[in-house]
Structures are given as C-alpha cells and as structure tokens.
C-alpha cells in the first residue's frame, strides 16, 4: 500500500534470486536419492543371507501402494496380507533360486495411498526413482490402478494389477501391465448362466447397483449379457453409494416381480440390501450381490444371508489342483489351495478372501516368471508373462497378447459362492459355479 519502497527490499529480492538459483543448481550435482535401502516390512521371516550357498544373492524390491486408510482399507489390507504371506513363504524357502545358483531375495516397499488418487502418481514415481523398485504391483481399485499405470508404463516398469477388475483399463494399449482379476465384464455373466440352468422358466431380472465406477461397469455388462440371452431386465437402476436404507427401493423392485435380483456394490450396502430383502419377504428366486457375500462376516445379517450368491475371484473351497491341471492339460505351479488357506489362517487367524489370494498370486506370478527366465531382467520376464498359460491355486492365468488389450486377463474364471445351511443349521459357504468347481449344487432362493 505504501508507495515508497525501500531500496533494501530490492536488494533482498536480488539476493533471494541468487540464493534460489544456487539452490536450483545444487541438487543437480549431489544425487538426491540415497541408495534404496529396502526397509523390509516386519513380516519378513528369518534372515535371508544364510540361504545362499554357492551363488550370489540378488535383492529385488517389489513396490506398491496400499490403502491403509480410507474406503478401500479392508480389501487393500487383505491383499497386502496375501502378498506378505507370499513374501514370508519365499523367505522361508531361502529366496527364489535360479539355475546358476543365484538367489533372488524379494522385499516389499509400500506406502499408504489413503484410498485417494491424489498421491498415487507421486508415490509410484518415488517407488521407481528413489526406492528403485524392480517390479510394481497396482494399488487396490481400478481408478487408482489406472493412475498408477500412467507412471509405470512411461518408465516401462512391469506392474501386476490385482484388485483392479476394470476392462477399460486394460484396453489402452499398455505394454507392461498385467491383470490378475477376471475383468468386470464377466462378474455377473456366470450368474446369469447359472440362473438359466437352475430355473429355465425365469425370465425377469432386476439389476440394481451402487452408482460407483466398478459396480456401474459390472451392471452395464450384466444388462447387455442378460438382454442378449433373452431375459427382460425389469429394473435397471443405480443407487447412491451412501444409501443405508433400501426399504422404498425394495418396494419398487418387488413391484416389478423379478425372478432374480443382481447387482449391489460394496459390503455395507450389499449386506443391508440382502437383509432388507429378506425382512420384506421378497420372493425372488436368486439374489446375486457383488463383494459382500464372499466375506465371512456376511452371515452377521442372519437368515437373510441364506441362498445369497456372490461372484468371487477365488474362494478357499476352489478345486484347482495339480490333478486338475493335468486334466486341463495345463502346467501347475506353486502352493496348493489347502496350504495357502491353512498358512493364511495360521498367520492372520482368518479365512483368506479373494483379495488375499490375489495378493499372494501377484507375488507368485513374479516368482514363476523369475524362475522361468532365470533372471530378473524385465524384458525377459515380460516375454515370459506374455506366453504364460498355467493353473495355480488361484486358478487359470493367461494374459492377452493382442496389441489393443495386452495384459488383460483371459484365463481366469470367476467362481460363484452361495451361503447354504448345513444339517445343523450352520451357514456354510459353497461353491456353486462353475459346475466343474462346485462343492454343492446351487439352490434357488426360498422364503421360510
């Protein structure tokens, strides 16, 4: 405001300029990033160095962000547990042994992304440039994975996506990104097939879904699939993800008297929806919900959980095995389903969810490719992943090599679980689809 400006200020300004220019040049000379001392997470098992006998030990770092806070916290946390279990398995085995006697010893480096896009790109850049990670795993959720892929792709870093099922992400011509999850387009198609098998007379489907990116995508594909298979979609409506009471919406759905209701979104809304459908005695023959049913806590809603079907990437009950691999004429690799489940239970005192299996599989996949190629050379590993076609505890893995959809998962299949009651009235989670993997026959929904 004062029109007179002391000369000293001008001198200060010039001095500042000089300092700033100096500051700008200095870091160019001195390297800013300290050598990446891979801080192993506390889960790391016994000291790795003892394992190497003749050859040398190569340390590799696998970097990623996990959602330790925010809305993806639970799913991302389970994914992280799965990955840490893999790491401890590898460490116990003394690392990944190559033919020339070299031992590859992996470690994990991860940061919290807060379930938000804000920092994802910054953290992946930091992982690549400062932490010098060798391989990347995606954050949880398609949105964050997409943001991360823009960074990993430009550095040509190999990234395995898990917890990201979006189709579109993988249709961008990525060269270094590999998807573990069965894409969203197939989340409900199996359920519609199952409906056809179980109840040929069923004609009307209601698709109701949470208005979030993932559920909406799934619902759109389900709508197309159902219509093309001769079903009439009597309700196709989204609800706000924050919805806590579905009473009125259920009245509206019931008025259309659908034979099957499919959709949902996340855990809280899905379980409330299932409970209220039951409380309101809505007689649909089939209820298929995303995300919520596979979780063990789903049965907290009581009898409303019965007959509810959920698509899942993986369940502890799946029947993938070395024998199954032989039958399908595929190579088998890695831990067995029972061992994985038992180890997980021993370590975390809970049944593994498909997120956990996906996390473990991400590590296992890298391990397989390193063993195959006897190297940690990214180019060789990518070439190996491109031609990979195998069965593991997690199921069938095969990636698209088409230029447009490179890296998209084309081998893995969804499984569908259903909550059924055993003779003594306890809830049991059964695999009901695909028929080759089932542990029990699917049951149509009926009210008591």
């Amino acid at each position, binding site marked *: 405001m004062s029109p007179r400006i002391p000369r000293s*200020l001008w001198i200060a300004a010039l001095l500042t300029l000089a300092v700033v220019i100096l500051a700008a040049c200095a870091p160019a000379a001195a390297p800013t990033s300290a050598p990446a001392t891979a801080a192993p997470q506390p889960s790391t098992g016994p000291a790795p160095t003892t394992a190497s006998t003749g050859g040398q030990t190569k340390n590799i770092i696998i970097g990623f962000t996990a959602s330790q806070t925010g809305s993806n916290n639970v799913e991302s946390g389970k994914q992280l547990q799965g990955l840490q279990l893999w790491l401890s398995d590898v460490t116990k085995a003394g690392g990944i042994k190559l033919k020339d006697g070299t031992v590859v010893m992996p470690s994990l480096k991860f940061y919290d992304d807060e379930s938000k896009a804000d920092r994802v790109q*910054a953290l992946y850049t930091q992982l690549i440039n400062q932490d010098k990670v060798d391989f990347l795993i995606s954050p949880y959720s398609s*949105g964050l994975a997409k943001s991360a892929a823009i960074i990993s792709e430009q550095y040509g870093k190999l990234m395995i996506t898990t917890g990201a099922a979006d189709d579109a992400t993988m249709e961008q011509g990525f060269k270094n990104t590999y998807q573990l999850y069965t894409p969203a387009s197939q989340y409900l198609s199996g359920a519609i097939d199952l409906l056809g098998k179980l109840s040929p007379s069923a004609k009307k489907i209601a698709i109701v879904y949470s*208005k979030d990116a993932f559920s909406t995508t799934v619902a759109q594909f389900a709508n197309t699939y159902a219509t093309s298979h001769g079903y009439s979609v009597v309700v196709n409506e989204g609800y706000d993800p924050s919805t806590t009471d579905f009473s009125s919406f259920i009245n509206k759905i019931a008025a259309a008297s659908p034979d099957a209701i499919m959709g949902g979104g996340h855990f809280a809304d899905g379980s409330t929806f299932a409970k209220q459908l039951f409380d309101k005695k809505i007689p649909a023959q089939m209820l298929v919900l995303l995300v919520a049913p596979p979780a063990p806590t789903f049965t907290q809603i009581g009898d409303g959980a019965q007959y509810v079907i959920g698509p899942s990437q993986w369940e502890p009950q799946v029947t993938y095995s070395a024998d199954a691999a032989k039958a399908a004429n595929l190579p088998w690799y890695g831990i067995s389903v029972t061992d994985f489940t038992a180890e997980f239970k021993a370590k975390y005192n809970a049944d593994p969810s498909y997120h956990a299996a996906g996390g473990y599989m991400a590590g296992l996949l890298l391990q397989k490719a390193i063993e195959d190629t006897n190297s940690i050379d990214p180019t060789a590993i990518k070439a190996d992943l491109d031609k990979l076609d195998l069965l593991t505890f997690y199921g069938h893995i095969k990636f698209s090599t088409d230029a447009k959809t490179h890296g998209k998962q084309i081998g893995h299949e969804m499984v569908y679980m259903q909550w059924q009651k055993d003779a003594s009235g306890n809830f049991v989670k059964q695999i009901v689809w695909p028929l080759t993997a089932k542990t029990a026959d699917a049951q149509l929904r009926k009210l008591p």
Partner: protein
Amino acid sequence: MKNLLNPYLWIILLVVGGISVVPILTGDASMREDLFLILMLVVLASSVNIITGYTGYVSFGNIVFFGLGGYFAFYLMQNFETNFVLAALVGGVGASIVAVLIGIPVLRLRGAYFALATIGINEAMRTFVANFDPFGGSVGMFFNYSVYNAYGGAKNALWFAYDGIVVVALATIAASFLIKKSKFGLGLLAIREDQDAAKVLGIDPARAKVIAYTFSAFFPALAGALFFFKNGIIEPDVAFDLLRSIEALVMVMLGGYGTVVGPIVGATVYERITALLITAPSITVLGVSLGFSQLHLAIAGFLLLLIVLFVTAGFVGWLRQRFPRTRRYLE
C-alpha cells in the same frame, strides 16, 4: 499497475518459482511429483483464501470448481480432441461462469449459512455428475494412454503438466498478492470486517464478492484440469472430494488466514507432514506393527487441533501479531 513493481511480490514469486524450477533443471521426477502436489495445494489454498481469507466467506465446497475445471477440460479433450491448453482455459472460464451464476444468489447468505450452501452445491454437483452420462456418470472418463502421444508421450506429458501447474501456481500467487494490495482487495477486506459498514462506505459488496468468488474458482479449475490430465482418469468422487476442500481451508488456517504467504506456507507444511507420515517406516510396539500411516489421520487431526486452539492466526498471522513490525512485509 504499480503493484507489479512491488518487490515483496517478486520475492515471493522468486522463491516459489525458484524452487519449482529445480526438478525441471535436474530432471528429478520424484521431486516433480511432490512439487506438483504442493503447487496444486498452493493453488487451492490461495484461491480459497481470496474468498474466505480476504472476504470472510467460508467456502467449504470450493473444490467444486476444481472438479468442474477437470471435467470441462476432460470432456473437451475426450470428445473434440481439443488441445490441452485450450481445454484447460475453457475449463477455467467455464468454472468461473458457474461461479458467477452460483455466486450471485449464494453470496447473499452469511456466515454458517453460506458455508453450508457451498457444501450443498458441491454435493449436488457430485451426485449430479455421477448421474450425468455425457460426463461418464459414476464411471467417469478416462484417457486412452495414446492421448499423451500428442504431448510427446506420457513422460513428456507429465513434465508438461508440471510446467502448467508451476505457471498456474505463480499466477495464483500473483493474483492473490495483487488483489490484496489493490483497491478492490481493500474493499474485500472491508467486507470481511463489516459488510454493512463497507456498504455505507461506498463498496458494492454483492459485486465485489462475486468477483472474488470468481477468482477463487478460476485457478482451482485450471489446477483441476491439470491434475486430471495427469491422472488420466476423472471420477465424480475424486473430482468433488469435500475432504480436499476442507483440507484447503486447513492449509489457509495453518499458514495464516487472509495473508498472501500464509496459504503457500500452509499448503507446503501440510503436504510435507502428510507425506512424511505416509512414507515414514512403521514402528513395532509390543509386537504390533504400527505404521504412522495408519494413524496419520489422527496425528494430523491432533496437530490441527493444537494449531486451531493455540495459534489461531496461523503461522504467518502469528508472526505478524508477535512482531507487529513484520506486518508491513509479511503480506
């Protein structure tokens, strides 16, 4: 514009610009990413400071303009292959027009009522866009990776986005300074102190407030365009994240409400603290691994509470109060 020759302005711009230019000179991508975030937050905090710090209207939902700018630009690039710079400018202007239309009725509200209305506007916009198919509805919009080829590939596009945020941040700071030192700015401060008295003194508050609101919308819209261009995907929840809006106010508060330097300091400190908490190695207490990151929300909340309770004027404001002579220099 006599203020353009004001050395205080140039000291601020030189410091911010000088630091911002470091990653460009050294090619340090990690530093670039960190600074992108800091500069983006500087833009958000400085902009909300214009309407909240200068004019006294607590704009809780100011993030709505960040989201709108992002959406407008994204839409143009996606559907008309508009060049990014043009798309971002259209986004900025578009958001400003929305600000005028919203501002005229809403700025009549005072105090808590205005704050609540801005929350309502942001939520209305978020839920609307989630249902608005041209903007991709709840799925949002995303770039095909090849979009970046027009900017020399993804790698160059990120540098390009960084150059952009540096320019926008410097422009925001300059605008924030020039507004504060101008006659118009004096009018805003008068409105903040006592709107009715200001009116009697010859200030047209309605007009001044709408103009201030428009400024506080324009720069965040540009930042939004840049952020989502870089991010490659835009979704309603990310674009209209109320929490980010509140965080911008926290930064203003940290640094010093109503000052030019305050929001810059506040944004930088806030971002660095968060980053530190997130990337800090976890510690093991009694066999339980406790990441700072798991508690970083709580720690941030605790620090904020201490500041709000004991350093009400924020860092810069505290300096100004503690050392009144600095009032002339610390704007």
